[in-house]
């Protein structure tokens, strides 16, 4: 048995090689562990390999073939990678939006520069009442009583010209700008209030009555805050 020197030379691996070896070994260990767990659960180890990755296939009791690497390992990695997954990309952007979005407590303060969503549409509504308000009878106003702050913020960008990108304008400017918005908002709220009262009079079911009452309450609160704004 002649020893071939070329066959098996050993030299210490470089750092890059070590990293590759380690990463590969970790992946292999993960695959082995998952396969071992599935074997103990009653899966059968088949004699075939997966076409995509070359891992040994397992078969469950319903005779379905299962590749551990493709289904569990690689999807974990790709699922969260924005470059590969559109969903992940969208959710990442929305998260960034949430982080930089101003909190909706006061209408005037930082609403000069509200970040729009990518699509330019108003933020999704969060309750049924708000959505029904949207679908409600004329006037075709884009907002409802419960989302007045966002409505005001959405109104602003088209109204404010570009040079006014400086951070918060003075309260005077705000009041002047808000006047037409406030009055139209008040109109809309009153109209909604009237409509809800009419519906409440004709309503037959308890659920609908409860919802209409809450709508009326919401309208009243919105009116109060609008009045406060007008007075300030």
């Amino acid at each position, binding site marked *: 048995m002649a020893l071939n020197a070329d066959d*098996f030379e*050993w030299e210490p691996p470089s750092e890059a090689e070590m990293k590759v070896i380690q990463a590969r*070994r970790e992946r*292999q260990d993960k695959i082995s562990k998952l396969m071992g767990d599935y*074997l103990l659960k009653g899966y*059968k180890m088949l004699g075939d390999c997966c076409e995509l990755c*070359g891992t*040994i296939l397992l078969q469950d009791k319903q005779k379905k073939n299962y590749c551990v690497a493709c289904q569990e390992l690689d999807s974990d990695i790709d699922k969260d990678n924005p470059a590969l997954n559109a969903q992940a990309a969208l959710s990442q952007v929305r998260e960034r939006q949430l982080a930089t979005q101003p909190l909706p407590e006061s209408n005037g303060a930082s609403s000069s520069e509200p970040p729009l969503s990518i699509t330019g549409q108003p933020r999704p509504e969060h309750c049924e009442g708000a959505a029904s308000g949207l679908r409600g009878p004329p006037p075709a106003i884009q907002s409802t009583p419960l989302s007045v702050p966002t409505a005001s913020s959405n109104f602003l960008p088209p109204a404010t010209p570009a040079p006014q990108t400086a951070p918060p304008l003075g309260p005077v400017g705000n009041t002047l700008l808000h006047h037409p918005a406030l009055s139209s908002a008040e109109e809309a709220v009153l109209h909604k209030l009237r409509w809800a009262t009419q519906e409440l009079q004709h309503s037959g079911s308890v659920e609908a009555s409860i919802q209409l009452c809450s709508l009326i309450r919401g309208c009243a609160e919105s009116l109060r805050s609008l009045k406060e704004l007008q007075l300030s």
Partner: protein
Amino acid sequence: MQEECVSLQVCVSVVGALECVVRRCLGPDGGSVLFTRDTGETLITRHGQRVLRTLHLQHPMARMVLDCVCAHAKATGDGTKSFLLLLAALLREIQDSHMQRKGSWSIPSLQNLANRLLAVSRKELEDVVTHEITPYASLYCNHHSYKLEGSILDLLIGGYISGRVGIGQADVLKRVLCELYHKISQDQNAEETISFIHSHFSFLHTAVTGLPIGCSEVIEGLVVTCDWSVWTEPAGSVKALILYESFGASFVAVGENISVCIQKDYLQRTESAMKQKLASLLDLQVHVVLSSVKQPERVSQWARLNHVSLLECVDSAQLDFLSNISAAETLSHPPLQHLVMLKYCRRVQLGGHRYACLGTFLHMHTLVLCAPAPGFLDQIVCVSQGVFAMLQHLSQSFCQTLASDQSQSPSLDQSQSVLSSQDLWGGILRAGGVLPVGGMFEFLLHHFLLNERNSCDPQSCRLLAEALLCLPRTLYSRNHRRFLNIQTRFLDDLKQWDKTKEQRSEMPELKVGFGFSESSVPCLESVSGKKQLVVSVLQCLHRLLCVGAILNTRCPLRTGPQTHSEEDEDEEEEKPKHSNSTQSTDL
């Protein structure tokens, strides 16, 4: 027929998966695996072979590895899980080392490596064990012999059991197994006792479910797992008849001519023939009839009338065993009948069943093993069987080395005296055949392989040495710091030992004590068993790496990988292309 190229990657995946399955059951801290069936049956076990056999493995490599594991376990009774761990570690080392070659392993180079590793197992391993490990073990054990409480056999059995059953059960099992050994060894020497118990273990034990393990005991006599059909308490020793066929069956002796013709009084003739035979039995003063088949009702009636005890449906292998140990005399006229003398006959109650107990003049004893659940009982029976397989392997290899030493230097009187004396175990200890448990063997082998100076293949030795450390690492996986501690201290000790050995000065004080194992009582394991494990693993590795291609055929699948013929067919399937190269490897 489809063909696929077998790569190192597939080997690593298969063996890696199997290793992950058994890894959790290794060592005294290991857990058990719970298997359930749809019918509600459960099996809780940590016996490596049982766990592996219960898995559904269709991959031919997995089945081949399982065959190797079972063959090894049958020979030594030890090391199913360690086998897989070591095999997986070796394959991973080979895979990592190929990264530096900047190319993939070609099949001939893999085969070359496999051959070289096999050569290491034959030469370097043998040298290291004989010239380095055995002297170290002998010195170590003699040095610390004052710490050994109890006999060496106790410690060997304790070492084997402690890694396989829980602590509370280990004590009971150890006591009971030692008792069995001592009771049977009254008539023979140690070597013969072990060989006898190992080969006839299936007759020497009875398994009883439903009782706690503390009820296990050794009772006198041979227990037969069926009850007497007709029972009268005999007084003293009795003559027993052993027969293997029904009384009514053959009333024609072999060699006689028979003429077949239906006669009117056929029934009456057979009746009278049977009466004659039974009467002849009474003449012979037979008081017990042991039959391997069910006898006709006529015979039971006769037995009741004449105060003869009748035991039916006994396992014929057990009846053979009984006739062998009792020096049975064969009756001439009916060919399949033997007469034995029994010391006594009893009826015993074991766990809700009544069994027959036969006493022989040869002081036979039966080990009654109890456990609450069938799975646990099966594990205890396997462990008990494994103990005696391990002891048998140890004593056999020791006697072989002694015999070879004697043949080389016939003037040695020492070896002769050791063989003839009863103290086989003391002899083994003095000759360095045992080491404390807990990874000591692996550390020693690792150190000596790395420092082997006159080796012709240092790379393969290094490969094997690095892979060996996986075993103690897994044993101490719960406490990694302890592993590193032990490794450092031990290797320091070894360096010191090497130095003083060269200087031929006095023996160094070995600092690493018996605190290897977690329990306070030291336990021993057999060096030859461990060496056999490494050899078997390297042989299995050779088979795995020499597989050239796997051909999937369309013939129906076989269930269960246990038969030898099936293994040959697998090999034929798997080595079609590279038959030339594989033949050349047979040295």
